């Protein structure tokens, strides 16, 4: 039997004005197990807390009920006070008689009756409370960043800055991501490579950062502070430690007809390649799909020209295993496939390009050396039509995405402006549904494209593009002018919607991090915890969480790093003690709880139990990892045998509350 003390707070007149606190205290004194009741003007004051502490020690109270304001307000205060007096934190219950009683009722008798009932419910719960101790788990002081784009790079640099070891896993042969393919950045028009490559070099030179390029995360186990990760290092067929990146092999390789992925297939490269001049690590990679030596054993030119002897045709994929305390997802984005949009003739004419392809056509390191030329005949385009929202804000899930891709308005303005600046003789049209330019100096940038550079912005969409005699017949509508337009364009640029990288889904599954219907990672709270995944220890950086431009990506990357540092600084983590707990004797091993758990906190083990007549039998039973469980209780309801219960909110406790209220 518990010895319960009940403390009723007046909260000045906040409670006492509508609730007869003395009657409440007196009535609750008749409840079973209650050995002491009192009322006091301010329970949360120092004196009030002291009184609780004194009574705990004086009467040896095993449970405390405080009738006061909302537990969201002072539960922690009272728990701490009781803790100091030697009572377990979780033997304290609050009856909310302010927000949910005195403040919402005017009739004193009614309010007093309700306060008594709420007090009774709290007493009934405390009767069944058990002391809970928060467990701790150690923290591995090392972070993993999945994805080596600008988001991953910034996160890694910031974590390393704080003195923690970071590993970057990047599936491409080099880090850098999409930003390496971009020509200029809005709204300042500085060159993307000029601001990105120093950061890539910083990563390579930072001794706290280890880059696993051309690698993929294969398996993730464990939980916050103690992740266990398997990383597969794909075979480059080049010894990474020996290759000097001189590039001799990439010039001599006879296989010249490989579509250059870095330039989005607008030109070709060799079968052995370094993606671009500033690649990090600057190491050659053999493309096994095209290399003659790997395919049929005839060639070996690269091995002959390599003075360092780095070529190794027999190299195999290797797997490394590492422990991490925190994982950051920075898997990034891709433009969507435009082949669904027949109306824009993307698959029919090489002169209809996506915006990212256009970046390459404008880039000095691109296929045209920075001169804007039509891919079909290499002539300079005189009339260029940009189409915005291609696949964005499109409810047809087969073709596009329902969301706004956010960056297209700005990069289209940038492209249009650069065209007019480099080639003032070109006519540039931009067709838009809305121009969305929130951001520092963004709208000014777009207005500059219109006012200073004379780009024709036309409200309305392009209906169709038909290639005809080397021209692209564009049919569009100017909605503000209520006119149909027919433009003979030389080039059409489609601002393709962006979507999360295809690998994000499998990464999320491995991390048990949740995703929305568009495959963007969900944040723990859309406003207040935007860089954390609901899964403890998993953080989000960059466009894997939602469409973002570079400044926002960098800001989020640093925010994610700050969260990681906050976690890695701790030597151990205190767990929430109100977690699910299975009764192994009742568990029938059905896996229902495992399926509903959003955190992957439940696993099954085969455990030995004592059977009748000194036999043992092995049964499959659920196990909850208290470091991962967040205490939502979904499993407790899913459990058919009633084996799963939630500490602090057990079935019996809630039933007791129900009984007390309905009595």
């Amino acid at each position: 039997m518990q010895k319960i003390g009940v403390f009723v707070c007046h909260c000045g007149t906040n409670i006492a004005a509508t609730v007869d606190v003395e009657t409440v205290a007196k009535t609750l004194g008749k409840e079973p197990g209650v050995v002491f009741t009192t009322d006091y003007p301010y329970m949360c004051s120092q004196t009030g807390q002291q009184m609780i502490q004194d009574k705990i020690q004086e009467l040896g109270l095993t449970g405390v009920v405080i009738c006061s304001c909302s537990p969201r307000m002072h539960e922690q205060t009272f728990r701490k006070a009781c803790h100091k007096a030697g009572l377990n934190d979780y033997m304290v219950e609050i009856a909310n008689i302010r927000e949910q009683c005195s403040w919402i009722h005017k009739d004193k008798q009614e309010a007093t009756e309700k306060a008594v009932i709420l007090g009774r419910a709290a007493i009934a719960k405390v009767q069944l409370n058990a002391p809970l101790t928060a467990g701790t788990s150690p923290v591995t002081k090392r972070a993993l960043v999945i994805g080596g784009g600008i988001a991953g790079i910034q996160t890694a640099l910031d974590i390393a800055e704080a003195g923690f070891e970071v590993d970057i896993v990047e599936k491409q042969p080099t880090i850098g991501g999409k930003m390496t393919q971009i020509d200029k950045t809005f709204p300042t028009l500085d060159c993307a490579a000029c601001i990105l490559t120093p950061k890539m070099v910083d990563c390579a030179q930072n001794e706290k950062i280890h880059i696993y390029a051309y690698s993929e995360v294969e398996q993730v186990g464990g939980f916050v502070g103690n992740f266990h990760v398997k990383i597969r290092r794909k075979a480059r067929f080049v010894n990474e430690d020996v290759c000097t990146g001189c590039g001799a092999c990439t010039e001599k390789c006879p296989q010249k007809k490989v579509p250059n992925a870095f330039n989005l297939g607008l030109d070709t490269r060799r079968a052995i390649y370094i993606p671009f001049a500033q690649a990090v690590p600057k190491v050659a990679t053999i493309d096994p799909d095209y290399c003659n030596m790997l395919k049929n054993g005839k060639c070996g030119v690269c091995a002959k020209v390599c003075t360092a002897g780095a070529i190794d045709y027999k190299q195999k994929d290797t797997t490394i295993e590492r422990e991490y305390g925190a994982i950051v997802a920075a898997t990034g984005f891709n433009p969507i496939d435009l082949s669904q949009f027949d109306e824009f003739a993307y698959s029919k004419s090489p002169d209809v390009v996506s915006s990212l392809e256009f970046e390459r056509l404008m880039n000095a390191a691109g296929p045209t050396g920075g001169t804007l030329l039509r891919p079909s005949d290499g002539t300079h385009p005189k009339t260029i039509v940009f189409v915005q929202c291609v696949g964005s804000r499109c409810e047809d899930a087969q073709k596009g995405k329902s969301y706004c891709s956010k960056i297209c308005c700005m990069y289209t303005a940038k492209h249009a402006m650069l065209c007019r600046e480099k080639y003032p003789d070109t006519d540039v049209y931009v067709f838009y549904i809305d121009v969305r330019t929130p951001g520092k100096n963004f709208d000014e940038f777009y207005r500059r494209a219109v006012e200073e550079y004379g780009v024709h912005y036309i409200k309305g969409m392009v209906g169709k593009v038909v290639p005809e005699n080397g021209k692209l017949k564009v049919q569009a509508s100017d909605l503000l002018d209520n006119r149909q337009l027919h433009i003979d364009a030389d080039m059409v640029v489609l601002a393709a919607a962006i979507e999360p990288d295809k690998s994000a889904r499998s990464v999320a599954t491995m991390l048990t991090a949740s995703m929305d219907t568009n495959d963007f990672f969900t944040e723990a709270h859309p406003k207040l915890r935007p860089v954390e995944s609901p899964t403890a220890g998993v953080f989000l950086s960059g466009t894997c969480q939602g469409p973002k431009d570079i400044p926002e990506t960098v800001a989020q990357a640093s925010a994610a790093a700050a969260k990681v540092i906050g976690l890695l600084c701790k030597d151990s983590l205190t767990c929430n003690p109100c977690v699910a707990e299975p009764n192994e004797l009742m568990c029938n091993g059905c896996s229902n709880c495992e399926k509903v758990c959003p955190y992957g906190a439940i696993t099954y083990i085969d455990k030995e139990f004592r059977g009748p007549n000194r036999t043992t039998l092995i049964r499959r039973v659920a196990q909850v990892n208290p470091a991962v469980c967040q205490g939502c209780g979904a499993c407790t309801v899913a459990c058919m045998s009633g084996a799963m219960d939630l500490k602090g909110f057990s079935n019996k406790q809630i039933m007791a509350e129900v009984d007390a209220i309905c009595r």
Partner: protein
Amino acid sequence: MEQNMMDTIARISGVNLRRCMRCGKCTASCPAFDEMEYHPHQFVSMVENGRIDELLASQGIYTCLSCFACVERCPRNVEPAKLIEAVRLAVIRKQGENHLHAEQIPAMLDDELPQQAIVSAFRKYKR
């Protein structure tokens, strides 16, 4: 010709047409809205798109009261009223224009036409 007219109108009004961002506040402010064939925001886009002839022929340009509400309220300082004034001015300037050129005459000659009519036409349209 139209490009010329566009430039002329833009120049004499002093309006930078590119500044317009099609918000429609000018039209929303216009007290003569119901009486107008084209509305202030349309004036701006029509001049910009070279639809000058339609504008010159429109009665709408005379229903503008020149109250300058649009000028006052435009968030981008486009000043549509000045543009309308410039269009009106362009119409007035057109009135004194030569409609016949000497080199066009031979093609227009008709045997039935009295010589006197030709001479008086020259007189009339001479500057």
